[in-house]
Every structure is written in C-alpha cells, then in structure tokens.
C-alpha cells in the first residue's frame, strides 16, 4: 500500500482496480454492484467459497478473477 493512501491496488479480470484498504471480497462485490450469489471469485488462483466473502480481507496486489453469471439456459 502506498503510504498515506487509504486505497489498495487490485487486478480484477486483468484490469487494475483501486479499492479501500481493508476491504473484504463482499465489500468489493458491493462496490462493483455484483450480486454475491451470482458470482464465482478466484483470488490469487484459489476459488473463494462464497460463505467466506464477508470475512476474507483483500490485500494490496491481489489478483482476482470474478465470473458473473446471468440467468438463462
């Protein structure tokens, strides 16, 4: 984290994204307006089970893949 800056840098689906330091995955999904029930989140190459979204705190430099599903089939 840059000193004096309350933000951290993440890479989400290949794109650099800034979010508040100390955010959980759930905070990030809220920020991105994504329904936590409709996503699969991979953090630094590990799938994060959705029951841990609220407790898993992100770290500066994390790489995330967020797959957001839409209905229909």
């Amino acid at each position, binding site marked *: 984290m840059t000193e004096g800056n309350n933000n951290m840098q993440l890479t989400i689906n290949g794109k650099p994204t800034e979010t508040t330091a100390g955010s959980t995955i759930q905070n990030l999904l809220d920020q991105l307006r994504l*329904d936590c029930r*409709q996503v*699969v989140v991979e953090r630094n190459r590990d*799938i994060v089970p959705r029951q841990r979204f609220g407790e898993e705190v992100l770290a500066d430099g994390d790489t995330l893949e967020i*797959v957001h*599903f*839409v*209905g*229909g*089939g």
Partner: protein
Amino acid sequence: MKISVNEQLQDVTPTSTVGAVRDRVKPDADVLIVNGFPTEPDQLLTEGDQLVLIRRGEVPSAEELDALLTARHTPGVHARVKQATIGIAGVGGLGSAVAIALARTGVGSLIIADFDLVEPSNLNRQQYFLDQLGLPKVYALRDTLARINPHVHVAACHLRLTPGNITEIFGAVDVLVEAFDRADQKAMLVETFTVRFPDKPLVAGSGMAGFGPANSVQTRRSFGNLYLCGDGTTAAAPGVGLMAPRVGVAAHHQANAVLRLLLGEDPV
C-alpha cells in the same frame, strides 16, 4: 472396382448391379440409395459409388453404428469420443441440445441431472416433444437419446443438484457441462465443482437470451479449466426471452468446446 457400401469400402466386379451387391451384403434391405438418391435393383454401379442399404424399421447393431461413426469421424476421433464420460448439469434449453449433439457425435457415456418436468413453456427452445409433457426431463431426454443412438450409455438422475451431491454425481466425468437456467445455480455449481475438481474442464453457459446477433455468442476461457459460452451479459428478462436459435447457438458452442477438449484441442 471399389465402392462404399454402408460407409465400408467393398471390392465388386465392374458390371455389378445394386441388386447383386444387396443380395450379397444385405439381402433383406428394402431401401437402396446410391450417391444420395433412391434407386432400383437393376441399376449398374460405377467406381466410387456410395451405396446405402437399409431395411426399414431395423435398428443397426452396436457394431454397425460404431462402423458408421468411425467412417464419418475417422477412427482416431471416434475412439476418443467413445470412451468419454460427459456430465450435463441441467437439461433445459442448453443441456438437452448439448446432450443430443454429444450423443450424435458418439460420446460413450452421458450423466444427465435435473429435477424439472417437461412443461409447455419449455417447447419453444428445449429438445422435448408434446407427448413428453409432464415427464421428468431426464427420462424424456434419455428416451430421445436412445432413439438417436441406443448404444450411448445414459445415466439419468432425477434430482436437484446441490453442493452436497454434485461431486458424487459428476466425480467420474471427463468434462462437465453447466446448463442451468438460474444465475445463482450456475455460480453454485461452478464453485462446487472447481473447488473439488480443479483439473477437470467445466464448460458453462452465460448470456444467450433474446435474438441479438448469433456472432456475439462466444467461447471464452475464464480462470483455470473453466470455459464460458454465451455473450456474457444478456440475461433472460421480461421482453428478452429465451429462444431456440440463440440458446441453440450457445448450446452448440458448449458441445463443440466439449468435443475439442476430448480431442486435446483448445476450445477457444
């Protein structure tokens, strides 16, 4: 001279008639087709002709169907496809079409799972028939697949897939196809399966409602062994319904991704 009889090369004498070859190869055949056109027994055959001998109502044996698929797909492709086991989670618009495409391709085993019954509203896009209304979809689909190729082994699971049973039901598959309708169910299945089987390919569908351009439906690689087929954004909603053409495009993206994975090719 050499001609093809039911997709197998045969040596016949140059002045052979269709009837003479029929009498030797398949005397009970009552439909005779040369190069795609119905014909009579006294027609003379020429080098390279493709003769098809059919007995109406007769189901070819497993060996005959195998030979047909081998001839169509080449021996190497057929052998690999035939030994594969593919799971299909949900047999609505996507899953029913994927199952039919894979059965026609000669995939050896399919594990299909869905709790749903065939309803009239399904018939605008799903591969069911009016006389199957009210049946569990997995049993109706199993019957349809048996009419296409009775030698494809189909395990039909009439149940609701949950985090508790997905890994057991699909533990033996080479590739799993996600073919649910609801977004939260898609996410649940993908999370459950990829956590337990990170090395097994999973082909999911997302975004195929409406009648937008077919060319916006794509196959993409997400993370790990997860592949996504669809436009990624067009959800089913009031005014943007699910329709046979675009759901079919997405389903066949999925089926083709499965085939490419089985043949060691990158689906993207």
